[in-house]
């Protein structure tokens, strides 16, 4: 039986490893990803919150910047209103010069009267020529309702973003507007400060005015080329007046980079502060955290894998050694081998139990071998041919004797018919115990064929055990016994026959002597009629002798072997005739009550012997004047033959032994003691029964029951 191959993934060591790794990896994965997701959400929110706060802060700073500068202007107007618009140009110049000096964000300052006619100006970079008459303030969008006004953003020649802040000058007493003070305010420093704020590595800040035009950017060149940012969703949200949230928007910027954008509106001026950060960079901490989580998981998986491998190997090594040991045992069939026990755990105990089992198996195998040898010896020495056949009557096994009888060729799986095709031997397995003669190795032998049905499911799958016993000796002995008994019976019959022959011979002798005497009388020779008369008597008596001797000869001749349909009544009648002389001698009446047409299967000679034995016994048991009845009749499918005598009977003690060989109650020389023994065997061969009923002192009835056969049938 070939060994079943197991795929590698079914091995315990692999399963232990996989189990260990899975049991640690799965929860770890679950926890890791749960933690990562939670951390990611938190980080994303934090980043968005941080950028939102930044933008709010920047918006506040811008507002403060503008307001502070406006307040500076307002403060100067409050404290120097009259000097600013007065006649003293030096005083005005001092005030303006001081302001320009003190507020570094002011690029230039102009003061006008209430009609916007410029009264004086100072400038940081531009050359200030003497003010022309009627020169008016430019870029004025002022309302007295507001503290200050702020113009739109414009750019100087050198690209600096600037706005005009204008405040009104009020007379301190009358509160009447007496002029305006306008400062060209430089936003460059403010913008530089904002745009230098590092938003990660690739994030940036930009400012737009109230119309969404760029006024500041971390990359100031974009401001100089007036890059259109109005399409950005964040700017669109700002322009729409939507209040920003800390959640921000994700969109692609002008360079096609995915960014997350935050914005915060400035209250006054109505500018917008925008922070954009590439999504990839913004969430880099998340990515790094994810990488770390993966790294940690990998480390743990590595550790767990190594531990699983270690323990897996540790666990499975004894099992593998055990397996190897078992394989070796199977290979070598050495049941005395011992697999080393490596430790005292369950595996060790399993090895120990296996060794014990192996030892027991070895002992039992030895015993079985011994028994098999014994059985083989018995089977070979039994003297009978044995064979096992299956349901299809094919030979499965045979012993040496069977092989010796029939082995002309290899017998394996040959059909029973092929091998046993001999006269009478068949494989129909109908009649059990049939004895048949066949030629075996040139000798004539008698074989009793017996078969036994076997239980299904046996190891050989055999249906029948065929037993062929060489009963040649037995048969020959039986035949010799029968012959002996027959000769004994013949011997017994001979005296009766001799006695019977004496009568006719005496008559013949008497008549012959008389005839001779007459013939010697020359004077009165016998007439022809007298001679014929004497000759007729002689012929008749000779014929009687012939009949008597032929009866005996008929009984004594060997007879036909084998079995055939025989007439039961015929043999009884012949035997009665044969015994008539003796019966007359003993003055016993033989009564023939047999019916005709009673046919059985058997050997005629043997049947006659049976009848002779029983009638002889009946005659021997009868007293003078007694009678012996012989009946033969059919009772349904049976033929009954009864021989009844009214003699001395058989005691119960002897009744149980009458069929024993050599048992006799007759004096020595008057019987062999084999008569009933042989008769019993012959009746059994005829598949009948021989029964004796006897009452001591009253008589005996011998009853023979035989299966009826239709005449002409076989």
């Amino acid at each position: 039986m070939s060994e079943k191959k197991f795929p590698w993934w079914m091995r315990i060591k692999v399963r232990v490893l996989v189990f260990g790794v899975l049991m640690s990896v799965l929860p770890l994965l679950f926890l890791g990803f749960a933690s990562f997701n939670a951390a990611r959400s938190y980080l994303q929110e934090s980043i968005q919150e941080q950028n939102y706060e930044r933008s709010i802060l920047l918006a506040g700073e811008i507002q403060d910047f503008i307001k502070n500068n406006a307040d500076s202007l307002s403060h100067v107007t409050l404290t120097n209103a009259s000097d600013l618009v007065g006649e003293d140009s030096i005083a005005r110049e001092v005030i303006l010069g001081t302001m320009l000096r003190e507020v570094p964000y002011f690029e230039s300052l102009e003061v006008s009267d209430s009609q916007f006619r410029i009264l004086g100006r100072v400038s940081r970079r531009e050359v200030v020529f003497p003010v022309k008459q009627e020169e008016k303030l430019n870029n004025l969008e002022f309302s007295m309702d507001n503290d200050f006004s702020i113009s739109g953003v414009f750019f100087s020649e050198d690209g600096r973003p600037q706005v005009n802040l204008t405040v009104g000058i009020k007379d301190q007493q009358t509160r009447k507007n007496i002029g305006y003070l306008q400062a060209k305010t430089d936003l460059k420093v403010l913008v530089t400060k904002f745009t230098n704020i590092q938003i990660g590595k690739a994030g940036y800040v930009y400012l737009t005015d109230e119309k969404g035009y760029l006024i500041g950017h971390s990359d100031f060149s974009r401001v100089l080329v007036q890059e259109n940012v109005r399409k950005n969703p964040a700017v669109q949200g700002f322009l729409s007046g939507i209040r920003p949230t800390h959640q921000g928007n994700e969109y692609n910027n002008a360079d096609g980079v995915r960014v997350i954008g935050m914005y915060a509106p400035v209250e006054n001026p109505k500018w917008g502060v925008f922070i954009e950060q590439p999504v990839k960079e913004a969430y880099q901490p998340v990515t790094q955290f994810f990488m770390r989580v993966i790294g940690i998981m990998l480390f743990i998986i590595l550790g767990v894998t190594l531990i699983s491998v270690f323990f897996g190997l540790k666990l499975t090594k004894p099992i593998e050694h055990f397996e190897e040991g078992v394989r070796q045992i199977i290979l070598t069939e050495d049941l005395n081998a011992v697999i080393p026990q490596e430790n005292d755990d369950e595996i060790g105990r399993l090895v120990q139990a296996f060794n014990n089992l192996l030892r027991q198996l070895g002992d039992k195998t030895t015993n079985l071998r011994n028994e098999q040898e014994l059985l083989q010896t018995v089977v070979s020495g039994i003297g009978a041919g044995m064979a096992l056949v299956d349901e299809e009557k094919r030979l499965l096994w045979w012993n040496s004797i069977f092989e010796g009888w029939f082995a002309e060729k290899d017998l394996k799986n040959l059909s029973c018919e092929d091998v046993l095709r001999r006269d009478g031997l068949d494989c129909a397995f109908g009649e059990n115990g049939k004895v048949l003669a066949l030629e075996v190795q040139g000798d004539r032998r008698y074989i009793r064929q017996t078969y036994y049905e076997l239980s299904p499911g046996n190891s050989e799958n055999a249906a029948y055990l065929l037993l062929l016993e060489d009963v040649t000796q037995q048969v020959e002995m039986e035949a010799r016994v029968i012959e002996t008994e027959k000769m004994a019976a013949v011997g017994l019959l001979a005296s009766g026959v001799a006695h019977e022959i004496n009568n006719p011979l005496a008559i013949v002798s008497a008549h012959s002597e008389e005839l001779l005497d007459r013939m010697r009388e020359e004077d009165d020779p016998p007439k022809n009629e007298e001679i014929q008369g004497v000759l007729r008597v002689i012929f008749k008596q000779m014929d009687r002798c012939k009949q008597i001797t032929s009866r005996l000869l008929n009984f004594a001749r060997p007879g036909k072997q084998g079995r055939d349909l025989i007439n039961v009544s015929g043999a009884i009648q012949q035997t009665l005739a044969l015994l008539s002389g003796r019966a007359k001698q003993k003055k016993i009446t033989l009564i023939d009550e047999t019916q005709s047409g009673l046919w059985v299967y058997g050997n005629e000679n043997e049947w006659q012997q049976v009848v002779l034995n029983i009638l002889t016994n009946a005659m021997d048991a009868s007293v003078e004047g007694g009678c012996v009845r012989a009946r033969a009749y059919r009772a349904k499918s049976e033929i009954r033959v009864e021989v009844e005598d009214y003699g001395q009977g058989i005691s119960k003690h002897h009744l149980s032994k009458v069929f024993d060989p050599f048992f006799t109650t007759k004096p020595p020389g008057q019987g062999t003691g084999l008569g009933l023994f042989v008769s019993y065997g012959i009746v059994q061969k005829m598949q009948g029964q021989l029964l004796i009923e006897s009452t001591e002192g009253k008589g005996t009835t011998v009853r023979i029951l035989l299966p009826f056969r239709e005449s002409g049938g076989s």
Partner: protein
Amino acid sequence: MKKTIGVFVILMIASLILAGYLLSPPPNKAHPPKIGVLVVNDLRLIKVDGLKASLSELGFAEEGEVTYQIENAQNNLSQLSRLGERLVEGKPDVLVAAGAVEALILQELTIKRDSNIPVVFMGTLSPSEIGLVQNTARPGKNLTGLNNYHYELTPKRLELLHRLLPGIKRVAVLGDTRVPFFEQTQSGLIKVAEGLGLELHTYTVSNMEEIHKVFLEMQEAKVEGIVLLPGFFLETSTRQIVDIALQRKIPVFGVYPQDTEEGCLASYGTSNWSQGAQSAHIVSKVLHGQSPQDIPVETPDQIIFSINLKTAQKLGVSPSLGVLSLADQVVQP
């Protein structure tokens, strides 16, 4: 089986390496950025100081966050090229030129070596005019920086001198023809002079001998005030010029705030420190990965008006109070 074990071992090793990589700290600072600075003389080291201070505020402190390699030509112009080569070979992350002469040398070197090392100039005259950049809004190549606006402020200096000393009518403009853009500034000065009602005389010098000669000419022309034009020679010769001018009682209006300390009556311009400090913002952008070609050239955020009352006293002049109020710095007598 051996193959399976081999594959398993390889997988384990690969996983270990990957895990180690994933758990390794992020390479925040692979190496501190390196800044190479080319300086023509000690005067310009103040710019470097301003640069360092401002960079430190922007997160690039010298201790561990940035390294500097400073090459000083000690006023030897012929050494600039060699020193510049040394800087370029040091493979810095950014090169910084202390002024125009240094910027031109570094530009030449980076072109010669086909190098893309960014160069930031810490205050030069009109960089587009002198060929450092193609366009101040989009410089275009590997150079950007600060236009110190000194030339552009010359008319303003003329105005401030006039307002300081309204009585002065004949003003000399002293320049150096070797300085680029010299000719282009003349028409603007003339227009301003006319607007202010001043008579303008233009003189140029390129060495000490010529200074004396020029002053003789000025004396003949009865020049009442001198406005210095920016230039390397003039920058280094300011003291000598001022001394001679003081001897002749001629007020000199300088360019840099330190000119006032050297005896000029007044000066109007951005200080070296401010130039360095403002340039630091540009250097910071470069170090953060912005390309110089996308960083517009800046103009100074801070212009200092400085007046030396001590010199005024020596000259016997009284500066106008109105203009005095504009002064950011006043040297007291």
